[in-house]
């Protein structure tokens, strides 16, 4: 066991933190609430040039051979200032799906430009009817048609769906669950940009009999793809937790600072023991979230599926319990000012809320955990 970050990892954290404070203070995220894309190509390009987008990929793919933990460091730091560039959608979920299951040609076409900061991806698996069971159920269909296929169905709340160059879409095909790469500007792809609670954008995407050629099928349809999507879901959930660690940390820091400066009854309100205890509880929940997330980040790269499931679900549960506790109390202890749109603390509440439902919510992860044979073993 080794729970120390390496020199390189510490450096990576510092570089990302520096970049964020210089290039993307929270005011930038706020400004982008008004933007239809929700993020900026120039900043994405910069991230590519800094090499962050290549971190978690194997050297054979032009990456640095990093682990998920490295991606988690980046995501956490971006989370602190609510940086909206589509790192998770492009690098963690859709990107890893291509890295794990794509062939060389596919990786060349769709992944390489992403690593360079020249393109982005989206993982389109959620539908109005499948809730969080994205590996188990797809109403979108892939039907054989001549030499190729046609894709029909609708995906909802697709993270970065509004802007991605290529979509990785799950569908029920002739051989079971199938992952299909679809260039977003194709005929028969209809994208509707929707606003989300955290001021960002997502897309509802319809495929109206979109023609798909066989070389756009990623990996082996059937059991392999079920396992792949299940893994991608865990990667996404672990990334949501990593981001939540950043969100929770800042919400906590802002609150402690406020407790020291806000005066009522002639004393800083942090002098009231009721609030001291609350702040300590926030600190505890924040540390539990950080710890559970580190476990998830380490396990998510492992081949032991059961260990992976349990570590990720435990972290996602702690996001829902502890991460949200921190966010709620951050608002509460700010009093009226915390309810104004103008104050930043509300943005952290909203992002935490959104992270809570991405890649399985509390109830879903609890149920999955309870179903694990390793949990049930006595």
């Amino acid at each position, binding site marked *: 066991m080794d729970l120390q970050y390496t020199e390189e990892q510490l450096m990576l954290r510092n570089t990302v933190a520096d970049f964020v404070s210089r290039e993307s203070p929270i005011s930038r995220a706020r400004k982008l609430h008004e933007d239809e894309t929700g993020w900026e190509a120039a900043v994405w390009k910069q991230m590519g040039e800094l090499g962050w987008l290549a971190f978690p990929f194997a050297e054979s793919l032009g990456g640095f051979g990093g682990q998920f933990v490295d991606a988690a460091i980046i995501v956490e730091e971006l989370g602190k200032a609510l940086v909206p560039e589509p790192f998770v959608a492009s690098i963690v979920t859709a990107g890893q799906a291509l890295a794990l299951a794509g062939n060389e040609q596919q990786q060349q076409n769709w992944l390489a430009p992403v690593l360079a900061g020249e393109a982005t991806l989206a993982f389109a698996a*959620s539908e*109005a*009817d*499948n*809730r*969080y*069971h994205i590996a*188990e*159920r797809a109403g979108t269909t892939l039907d054989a048609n001549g030499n190729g296929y046609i894709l029909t169905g609708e995906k*909802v*709340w697709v993270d970065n769906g509004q802007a991605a160059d290529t979509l990785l879409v799950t569908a029920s095909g002739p051989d079971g669950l199938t992952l299909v790469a679809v260039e977003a500007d194709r005929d028969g792809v209809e994208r*509707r*940009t*929707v*606003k*989300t*609670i*955290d*001021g960002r954008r*997502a897309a*509802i995407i319809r495929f109206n009999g979109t023609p798909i050629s066989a070389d756009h099928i990623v990996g082996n349809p059937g059991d392999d793809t079920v396992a792949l999507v299940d893994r991608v879901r865990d990667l996404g959930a672990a990334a949501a937790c990593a981001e939540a660690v950043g969100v929770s940390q800042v919400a906590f820091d802002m609150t402690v600072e406020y407790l020291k400066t806000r*005066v*009522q*009854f*002639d*004393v800083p*309100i942090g*002098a*009231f023991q*009721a*609030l001291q205890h609350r702040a300590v509880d926030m600190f505890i929940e924040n540390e539990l979230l950080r710890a559970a997330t580190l476990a998830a980040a380490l396990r998510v790269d492992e081949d032991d599926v059961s260990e992976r499931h349990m570590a990720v679900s435990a972290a996602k549960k702690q996001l829902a319990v502890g991460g*949200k506790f921190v966010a*709620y109390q951050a*608002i*509460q202890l700010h*009093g*009226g000012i*915390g*309810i*104004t*749109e*103008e104050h930043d603390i*509300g943005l952290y*509440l*909203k992002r935490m*809320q*959104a992270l*809570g*439902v991405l890649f399985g*919510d*509390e*109830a879903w992860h609890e*149920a999955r955990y309870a179903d694990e044979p390793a949990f049930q073993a006595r």
Partner: protein
Amino acid sequence: MDLSFTPEQETFREEVRAFIQEAMPPHIREKAEKSGQFTMDEIMEWHRILYKKGWVAPHWPKEYGGAGFDAAQRFIFTEEMALAGAPGLSPFGLSMVGPLIMHFGTPAQKERFLPKILSGEEVWCQGYSEPNAGSDLASLKCKAEDKGDHFVVNGQKTWTTYGQYADWIFCLVRTDSSGKKQEGISFLLIDMKTPGVKVVPMLTIGGTPAFCDTYFEDVEVPKENLLGPQNGGWTLAKALLGHERTMIGGTGPLLRSLNNLKRIAAECPDGQGQTLADDPSWRRRAAALEMRYRAHEMVVLKQIAEQQAGRQPGPEASIMKIVGTTLGQQIDELTMDTMGLNSLNWFNDPPAVPPLQEWVGSNFCYNRATTIFGGSNEIQRNIMAKMLLGLPTLKFQAS
């Protein structure tokens, strides 16, 4: 003692239900059944409809034009209104300043203000909080100088809910800075149209301009608008906080959001071919909240009975505020969870979720305020620890 309603009370329930059925205009009904969210115009339209029926103030005595309902009738009335999803009326006149005027006002003040609160001709807002006087309300600075037959008011109020729609504001102002903070405060009724009053709406985290900054610059207020004794405003403020607590902790909105929760669950796929309403673990989570609601409802009923017997709300009212608001937030949280990814929706822009789900996200955010306003839940606990439990205070502990 008897918990079931008498045949007469059941008849009354039928009467209320039939009235709502008949009197609610179609455009209000449509919203009542869907988003449950109303504009100020619609709220005032419903206010006038109830006024005509004589039911706009169920809790006011008949002599002031109230409905004169007894405790049970009031409970039934609230429940039926909530079940129908009827607009919640603006509380500032009917539930806040109105009862205070009845209690502390001169005959002339009663005659001047009460009828127009009832009719809805004059809409009120509350000017208590200031940027540096929230929980520590007594440290307020907004100043009213005594000029013989009138006061001149200068200063700022903040978080004024719906100040932009109000004709009148009731304010706590400082009329004396020489002695104890609490002893130099007066209660003023101020016409918002007076020169020097400026209202600046602000957005809340719920995305709507639900409150305002209110500024006063050399605002002249006639002496006849002083409610209660000069420098005696703190007594009125405290009396009002008691009412506010029971009001905020009331059952109507909770019942409505529990109903919405169930209706939403019935339209949310569980991802395995059924809806969430079919999922036993979801049902347990929802049942747990409804069971707590039942206990809360009984506390409220007892509280109404106390008031009915002529007793002022005591520190026990804090129970209602604390339980009602936290339960409301838990219902909001479960509703968001129930919606799954649809909970990402923000004002259905463009339409992406069914109408019933459209406002849930906004309300979830805004309702974080319920544990802050009307005396924060921390302050309620302080009051209970001191007044109800009689626990000792340290010298440095305030309030």
